[in-house]
């Protein structure tokens, strides 16, 4: 790139909770003097618009954004996969009589926001259980306390919850697990515009390497990243934090790279729920480029 000085990168995140990208940035020691700036977004779609508009350089978000936008002809690509486990599980209030997805027919079910990943997961869950999705009353209930209130106070028979709230809620005994995703899905990928990456290879490379390094460090010595994790979730007690960080690290694929298996699973879900036309689905190599991650 033509730009002098240290490489910089503006990274969009949906903040709240522990993530590998945030751990990498917060634990410091980014390679090559990389300056990384975290920008917190309210939702993935806001961040994607900012990415396409050039307000941010990279975004760590769901793989569907790559698929969707490439299908729409927008030039975005995935450069690493940070999590291949769908994050949301369905939770019901204990004693509500809901034991499985089959019990939800015709009831209110809470997702974080309509059209979001949790909604996609719900559609997948209902399809698996043979419950008509259109028969549900889907409620957007946000994340965190609002979601917990929606489920706990009977606003919804079940709701989509992710960690760390998931762990907390289940530990409290007031809630039971109704459904847990058992498929692979590109839940978090590092997304950027190839045009920007071309002009800023060193920055992107350094950032991706930092992610890899953090992953390795965590795998080798989990406590070494707990300090950075504490920054992101200062209110979690140490044991829960440890559990959550361990889960986060476990969800990341080896070397942050996937083959086309999980990609196919992902696109299959998206076509199944009608979010992408089957004939518009981009090929794996078109959607992802792991070359900048360094030696495999």
């Amino acid at each position: 790139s033509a730009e002098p000085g240290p490489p910089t990168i503006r990274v969009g995140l949906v903040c709240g909770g522990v993530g590998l990208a945030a751990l990498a940035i917060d634990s410091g020691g980014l390679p090559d003097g990389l300056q990384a700036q975290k920008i917190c977004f309210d939702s993935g779609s806001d961040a994607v618009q900012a990415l396409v508009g050039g307000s941010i350089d990279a975004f760590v978000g769901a793989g569907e954004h790559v698929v969707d936008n490439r299908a729409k002809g927008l030039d975005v690509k995935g450069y690493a996969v940070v999590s291949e486990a769908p994050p949301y599980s369905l939770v019901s209030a204990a004693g509500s009589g809901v034991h499985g997805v089959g019990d939800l027919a015709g009831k209110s079910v809470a997702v974080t926001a309509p059209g979001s990943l949790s909604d996609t997961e719900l559609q997948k869950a209902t399809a698996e259980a043979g419950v008509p999705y259109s028969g549900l009353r889907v409620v957007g209930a946000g994340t965190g306390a609002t979601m917990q209130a929606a489920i706990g106070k009977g606003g919804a028979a079940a709701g989509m919850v992710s960690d760390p709230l998931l762990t907390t809620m289940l530990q409290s005994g007031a809630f039971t697990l109704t459904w847990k995703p058992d498929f692979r899905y590109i839940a978090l990928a590092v997304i950027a515009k190839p045009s920007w990456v071309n002009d800023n290879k060193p920055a992107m490379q350094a950032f991706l390497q930092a992610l890899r390094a953090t992953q390795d460090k965590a795998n080798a010595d989990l406590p070494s990243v707990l300090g950075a994790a504490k920054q992101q979730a200062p209110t979690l007690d140490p044991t829960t934090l440890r559990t959550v960080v361990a889960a986060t690290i476990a969800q990341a694929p080896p070397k942050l790279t996937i083959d086309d298996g999980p990609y196919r699973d992902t696109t299959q879900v998206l076509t199944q729920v009608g979010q992408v036309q089957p004939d518009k689905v981009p090929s794996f190599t078109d959607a992802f480029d792991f070359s900048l991650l360094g030696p495999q």
Partner: protein
Amino acid sequence: MTESLSLRTARGAHRAGPVPGDDDTRQPSDAGSALLEQDQREANRFRRTVLVGRIAVAVVVLGAWQLASGRLVSEFFVSSPSEIVGRLVQLVGTGQLWPHLTQTLIEVGAGLLIGVPLGVALGVALGMSALLSGWLLPYVMALYSLPRVALAPLFIVWFGIGLLSKITMVVTMVLFVIFYNVYQGVRNIDQDLFDVARSFRANRWQTVRWIMLPSLVPWLVTALRLSIGIALIGAVIAELIAASSGLGYYIKLSSNLLDVTGVFAGLAVITAVAIVLDQALGYVERRVMRHHPEKQH
């Protein structure tokens, strides 16, 4: 030059142009039909000019948007008027729009019905009592400046994800706007008029009805106008955070699907609702103002 500074609502004669005199009819309250006809003509001409200009503004803005879209700016960001219209037609045709629209309207309506009287009462009370306002005013300001968006999650926690939390949100938005205008309005009432009412020994309620409320009309009009917009915003914000229907829900859904056309279609409906409510308010205003001193259209 300074002439144009006089209010557009200047007293009649400011606008009266010379007309041929017809001196023979000396009726005190009639100035000849030529003059009246001319007034009529002028009024009609004015109404036409307004309408034409108004349409021109819309045409220019929408036209520029349509032309820019896909050329100057990516359609991904700004959609285009034709697409939005297409979507609206589809939403109306399939009947998808109504549940969202009625949901939002119910929230707005209920919020206004509660928030407006509450705000007026609060404004009157604090406007009239130096002690009450000394005690409460700073806190009112504090509450007003709380970002309701940030409180929305708490509202949902406290009032559930149903209608109640949305109406509460609308009320908290509307309340303050009404309050501040009424409060200032009360403090600006002509003391002489209160003296008149007192000297005739009007009781409290009569004074409120005959002196205070009519004096507040211009302030209330502004407050209501501001309320309509802010009530809609409140309802949508609440629906963005947590909802299963409503225009805010539809916008959020579209936004998450990166469907900018859907977002704009939702916004267009909100805008239309606002304009309709505003025009209705304008109609009421003209009826009330007919007897009000300062302004007549």
